């Protein structure tokens, strides 16, 4: 059936066609962050202009630049399919995976037309160019016991399955999508001020472990989470969730840990409790968070000035700051909201009781 000639024709044709597939090309400039600690005293940007075709991803463009223009340009990439989490970087100011980001989509988001800016993730030490150090994140996974400590005795391992309901599976299903790409870490507003902060991905993983009925160290993990730099430091800015490359509802996990902490440890136990009360009070009173005062009430004035003020200044320049307190008006229909809030709290409690009995 398949003569050799046919075979060769088939492949030759394919290569030729790929070459012809040049329609929809455009010159695109990549403005890439460069820093080699061996020779550079400070970072700078290099511009690379290439002719990019429709459908090409940012990572493929960087690969092209590395192969054809500047082999010293350094970045991480592995699966090229959005599953290994290696290629996180900031593209046009947003942290994401470069291997799933389409150049033509990015062109719509450029500050300067036709120039795509590529920078390393933030809040992690820079090693070289677009490569940042992941070790601090791994250390935090260790600190917060981001693993299951099984209730199955060692001698029984492998002999029988735990029975797990589909309902329980769904509680952590989405959270186990996390590929540790650190995009959320890079976007987190607290981390930028406080590198010790637990970080959203680690909160997510902690949540995933804590709702797993096979695990035996829920209380240990929770005790660590409510300490300084833990779950109560989060300002609920939602940036982690907005930037999650797997669209994981990280905030639900954070809320859930907080509710769990209040439930299990009572409202008065640590600095977190102060924060919790402030948080509840705000919601109940205004139907909205008074984000600007939240860190002050939890961490004290000095901490806030030292750690958050510089960032606040930058945010004001970028007009991202939550309005100062007097401007936060009670949300409309606050009465209805309060009633709903109480009902919700009740609901959450009931749910929790139910799930803990299982």
């Amino acid at each position: 059936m398949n003569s050799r000639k046919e075979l060769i024709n088939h492949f030759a044709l394919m290569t030729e066609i790929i070459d012809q597939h040049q329609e929809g090309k455009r010159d695109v400039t990549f403005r890439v962050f460069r820093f080699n600690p061996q020779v550079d005293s400070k970072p700078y940007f290099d511009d690379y202009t290439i002719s990019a075709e429709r459908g090409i991803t940012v990572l493929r463009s960087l690969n092209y630049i590395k192969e054809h223009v500047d082999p010293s340009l350094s970045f991480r990439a592995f699966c090229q399919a959005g599953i290994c989490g290696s290629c996180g970087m900031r593209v046009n100011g947003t942290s994401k995976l470069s291997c799933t980001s389409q150049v033509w989509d990015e062109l719509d988001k450029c500050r300067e037309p036709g120039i795509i800016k590529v920078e390393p993730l933030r809040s992690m030490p820079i090693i070289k160019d677009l490569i940042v150090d992941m070790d601090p994140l791994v250390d935090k996974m260790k600190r917060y016991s981001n693993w299951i400590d099984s209730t199955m005795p060692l001698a029984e391992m492998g002999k029988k399955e735990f029975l797990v309901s589909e309902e329980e599976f769904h509680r952590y299903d989405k959270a186990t999508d996390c590929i540790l790409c650190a995009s959320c870490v890079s976007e987190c507003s607290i981390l930028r001020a406080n590198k010790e902060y637990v970080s959203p991905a680690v909160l997510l993983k902690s949540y995933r472990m804590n709702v797993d009925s096979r695990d035996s160290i829920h209380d240990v993990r929770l005790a660590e989470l409510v300490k300084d730099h833990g779950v109560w430091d989060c300002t609920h800015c939602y940036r982690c969730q907005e930037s999650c490359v797997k669209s994981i509802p990280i905030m639900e996990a954070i809320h859930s840990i907080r509710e769990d902490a209040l439930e299990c440890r009572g409202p008065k136990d640590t600095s977190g409790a102060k924060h919790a009360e402030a948080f509840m009070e705000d919601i109940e009173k205004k139907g909205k968070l008074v984000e600007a005062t939240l860190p002050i009430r939890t961490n004290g004035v000095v901490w806030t000035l030292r750690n958050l003020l510089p960032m606040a200044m930058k945010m004001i320049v970028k007009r991202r700051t939550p309005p100062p307190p007097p401007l936060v008006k009670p949300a409309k229909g606050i009465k209805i909201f309060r009633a709903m809030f109480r009902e919700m709290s009740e609901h959450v409690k009931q749910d929790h009781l139910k799930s803990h009995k299982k």
Partner: protein
Amino acid sequence: MKPFDIVIVGGGGAGLYAAMEAMKTNPALNIAVLTKVYPNRSHTSAAQGGANAALGNKAKDDTVEMHIFDTIKGSDYLADQDAVDVLCSEAPKIIRELENIGTPWSRMEDNTIAQRPFGGAGRPRCCYCADKTGHTILQTLYEQCLRKGVIFFNEYFALSLSVQGSRSRGLMAMNMKSGKVEAFPARTVIFATGGYAKMYWNRSSNAAGNTGDGQAIAYRAGIPMKDMEFVQFHPTGLRKSGLLVTEGARGEGGFLINKDGERFMARYAKEKMELGPRDLVSRSIETEILEGRGFDSPAGKYIHLDLTHLGADLIKSRLPQIREMSLNFEGVDPIEEPIPVRPTAHYSMGGIDTDNFGRTVMDGVYAAGECACVSVHGANRLGGNSLLDILVFGRIAGHTAAEEAGKFEPGKISEEEIKASVDELRSSMQPSGHYERYGALREELGQTLALNVGIFREASLLKQGIRDISELKERFKKVRVFDSSDVFNTNLMQVLELKNMLDLAETVAIGALAREESRGSHTRIDFPVRDDEKWHKHTLATLVNGKTTPGEKPVTMGRYELQERTY
């Protein structure tokens, strides 16, 4: 560096399981895992479909025996039957163990681990977690290793074995962060570096780093490679990128359709249809395309994988990753339109020759996972058997090394040897005058392999392939590393990976030319039938005085006699 008892090269499923098991076997041992990417980035994370085990949760009448038979038949009778026994008998235990330590398996209605049908299996026995099975297994193992305090050397690139006499004294590796070559003296070394299918480059489903480093290192140290000619093509790679659409899509009921709208698998596997084994489905698609029944597009010929009849709910809940990938890389929503696919190089059946305990012929050197060839997959691996292989034999290799480490003297690596290694690296960096670009060579290698050592093979094509590869090896000597920095020199790393691929590609092509028969994934147009009399044996490739030297090894038989393989 202080000598280790065990150094494990590779932090994928095989490496991590080996580490866990070695620690469990003897907690007093000094064990390190060395990996070129953070363990959780390893290619195990890409396995979507699942892992086989005859748990009998879905089909109550499933048995280990049936799993064994399916695997042997799937291998086209080239698997060693005693090894398959181990693989399948250990399967239920290892899947439950993973469950016990936190792997989030999808669940059946009765709350047991969910299972689904998979190609080449007589019963639905593939255990899965949505379509992120490998990812969740790898996460679980990594988490457990962190819990147990396994020592990791992340982003270390293994370079060579230090061999003295008949045994290894440890390993040389480059610390990517500093660029320094560091010695890892060790009593034992376990290779768990994954597959080599990336040598097909753009026609491969593999991660950029699946370049067969461990195999190449072992090969250069004189350890034989086994059955290298067997490379599995997955039937359904995305048309443009080669990225994989899991078999799960067909397991859930997806159809393969040609341009005439036919479910053409009826012609090739009447009973199993789309769920026939991979080699058969790949050849069927390639034949449809060659005979003009494929679709045409600027990015090449392809056929359709149609999921539209499965409905939005099922696609969203069971195949979310496939939908995402198809949207990202083809711009196609499988809920509304069929996905354009064609075969892609996917899995390396061949690898470092080991026995059933993970031992190689060299004292103190072990191998497990995709980089090893025990052989449990023979001429063709069944979907869902590879995750199982890396877990079962990763564990066995970890256990064996831990038991045997005491037998060997502590490793020692001399300063001169380290210096020689550094010099070799340096010399590869700056050829004068005319130079070659590694990127071009890499692409040409992929092209000649896909064309001459691809799905359909033939003597003259294979000879051409071998000529091309040796020419590329010649040109490689002129490749220049432009990045002169020590810190995270990915330029240098990619050049070293290319060298590994070139060395191994030669063994693949030579093995394929030698094997004058068609078996499993290896299809010779000029020798279209299986020839048990002459070729029911493993091939070996050993480097002797700088030349690939062929050898052979008998297949271990057992309960099952040779039969024709039909589906």
